[in-house]
């Protein structure tokens, strides 16, 4: 059975800290891994990773994939209160772009 596991489940940090969120997966026919951020409403797309070792970066957020060890990390540097959200990792499984999501990591950034 395809599986996507995220850790930690929740995290509280102070503004300015750097955080690393983890996503490991076990899927057949791996194609890509996606990161989403969910604040109060809809998940919004952050990154899609397909190749090992190539970092994707957007401002203070970056992500990298390790296809040999079957995991990805999402780094957030100099965290701000606006980074508080649930971060979801997802992997397409089966056919037809079905996304299997991890349980998410709830990040809270305090002043």
């Amino acid at each position, binding site marked *: 059975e395809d599986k996507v596991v995220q850790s930690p489940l929740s995290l509280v940090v102070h503004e300015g800290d750097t955080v690393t969120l983890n996503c490991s997966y076990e899927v057949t026919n791996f194609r890509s891994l996606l990161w989403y951020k969910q604040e109060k409403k809809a*998940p919004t797309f952050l990154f899609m990773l397909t190749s090992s070792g190539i970092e994707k970066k957007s401002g203070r957020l970056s992500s990298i994939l390790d296809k040999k060890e079957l995991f990805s990390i999402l780094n957030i540097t100099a965290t701000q209160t606006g980074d508080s959200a649930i971060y979801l990792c997802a992997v397409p499984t*089966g*056919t*037809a*772009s079905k*996304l*299997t999501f991890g349980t*998410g990591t*709830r990040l809270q950034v305090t002043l």
Partner: protein
Amino acid sequence: DTAVSQTPKYLVTQMGNDKSIKCEQNLGHDTMYWYKQDSKKFLKIMFSYNNKELIINETVPNRFSPKSPDKAHLNLHINSLELGDSAVYFCASSQLISVEQFFGPGTRLTVL
């Protein structure tokens, strides 16, 4: 312009009732999805349609029936609502060849 929209945003209803949630996307995507997010925030796919044709049907009670009148719309009808149906339901869309999915704002369903 809203890319993926859902109505209503909130729905409170009694057990046993029948209700519908509507979804529309103006992105020109071929594929639309319904997801259920439970109280623990776990997001799980329910259905997917490509060009009005059902392509994913997860293990969902047959009280849930999706309907796609055209490729820009995917509605979800739920019969005989139960307490366990309380959740946030998200609609999403994508181009079939792209896995990046765009999500609607969600519909919070509360069954009393």
